[in-house]
């Protein structure tokens, strides 16, 4: 028996299938982000067009059919309302049709849990970095607690906005990383307060540098500063919580530079550091399926009519399983 998970909080409509913690499918279709960023209505329309196809693709990839599905999970939030609705509706329809239990999943928990699973970590401190979120978390009992987070925007949004303002294409973080190669450092504001951090100062400053400095120097400096801030805040949290393991997850965890910095810091403290493969750091359905499977195994399920979405669904609101 297998659990199917649907993710649609932002630009990706993803459908993953897991069987006893093993990922047997991870299909997705993405909305192409243009120069204006994400327009919610347009993204949701793209998801609507892709939904049925991606579900089929996942089943094919797993080599199973609908009758093998024993549970459904979907992203309840956080994310863009229009987009979340598409995933929720697909999940509810499937659950009703197949007559299987359904469970709403927090997007961020999906990212953390799949990183833990793929990196074979037991009780790590987690740095969760994506477009809209940048948080440092650890699980205590049956709940994640937020130890540190951004005061303003997520690091991914900051990098995407920078790419747009420098007119880089495609306008997102990996292009910033590519452009940053061989760059030289120019001063950037560095804002860490304890385990919290802020990114708007860097973005404003960097946008003003446009035309005055090479793009590669701007990208290099933004990246070095922002990642150093995250690494420093994470280091504080590691020592404060006395953690022996660290994982990084979320879309920005695809950055090689960020992983190298975190790895260097973890080595200094003799801490085990791990992360998932890139397709699991980008938004995906497998992580939702993975969490849904565990939640269902621990007796959590929701009534169909209670299944909703929540654009600002906070990780620390979610009651999970112990251990």
């Amino acid at each position, binding site marked *: 028996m297998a659990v199917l998970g649907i993710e649609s909080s932002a630009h990706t409509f993803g459908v993953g299938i897991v069987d006893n913690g093993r990922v047997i499918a991870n299909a997705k279709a993405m909305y192409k982000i243009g120069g204006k960023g994400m327009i919610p209505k347009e993204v949701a329309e793209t998801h609507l067009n892709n939904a049925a196809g991606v579900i089929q693709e996942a089943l094919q990839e797993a080599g199973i059919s609908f009758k093998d599905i024993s549970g459904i999970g979907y992203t309840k939030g956080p994310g863009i309302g229009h987009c979340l609705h598409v995933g929720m509706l697909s999940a509810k329809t499937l659950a009703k049709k197949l007559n299987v239990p359904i469970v709403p999943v927090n997007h961020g928990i999906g990212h953390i849990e799949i990183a833990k699973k793929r990196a074979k970590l037991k009780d790590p401190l987690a740095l969760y970095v994506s477009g809209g979120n940048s948080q440092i978390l650890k699980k205590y009992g049956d709940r994640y607690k937020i130890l540190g987070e951004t005061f303003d925007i997520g690091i991914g949004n900051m990098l995407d906005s920078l790419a747009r303002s420098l007119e880089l294409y495609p306008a997102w973080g990996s292009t910033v990383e590519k452009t940053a190669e061989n760059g030289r450092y120019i001063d950037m504001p*560095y804002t860490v307060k304890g385990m919290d951090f802020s990114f708007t100062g860097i973005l404003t400053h960097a946008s003003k540098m446009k035309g005055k400095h090479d793009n590669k120097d701007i990208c290099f400096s933004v990246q070095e*500063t922002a990642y150093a801030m995250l690494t*420093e805040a994470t280091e504080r949290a590691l020592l404060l919580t006395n953690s022996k393991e660290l994982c990084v997850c979320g879309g920005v965890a695809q950055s090689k530079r960020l992983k190298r910095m975190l*790895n*260097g810091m973890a080595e*200094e403290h003799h801490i085990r550091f791990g992360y998932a493969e890139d397709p699991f750091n980008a938004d995906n359905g497998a992580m939702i399926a993975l969490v849904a499977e565990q939640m269902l195994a621990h007796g959590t399920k929701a009534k169909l009519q209670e299944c909703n979405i929540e654009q600002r669904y906070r990780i620390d609101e979610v009651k999970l399983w112990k251990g």
Partner: protein
Amino acid sequence: MERLSEGAEAVMFEIRLSGKPLLVKARNRKAWRIARIDEELRERRTKREAKLMVLAKKAGAAVPGVAATGKYSIFMQKIEGKLLKDSKPTAKDMRTIGRFLGYMHAQGITHGDFTSANLMLTKDGPYIIDFGLGNFSNSEEEKALDLLLLERSISKAAYANARKGYASVSKEYLKVISRLDEIKKRGRYQTRTLLS
């Protein structure tokens, strides 16, 4: 030279200078960030921390005396006592702590990590230590955060006394308190755990 502790940012060790113990706080190189950022941060923070300590003391708070500073290290008076988090403070101790914070805030000094792990009780009364996250700031937000961190790290009764002490010397008490209430109403702080 005895290594006492290793924080995220610095190591502390003890040396003896003409028979007297001195505490050294040294900010070590972090190889994972580029040298330009690393050196600038360590130098700037060391300078700022030493200045904050000297000025907080001048403002009337009990703070370890700064004997000397290097580019990345501070040599300071060693305080003998127990951390507040490991002791039972009297009402007077807590009022004194509140007063000290009020004196600092009046001079535009915020501590940034004002918890029971950074307060010491000695036979001469309370001391405030570790200004590593401190700031020169007159922002009500930062001042309110000092109170919030203290509140979260000690008992209700102890905090009530500290607040009395703070109120007795602070001219901006009402403004800071109303900001504190506002911060508590914000989502991110309602569920936030402060472990220290």
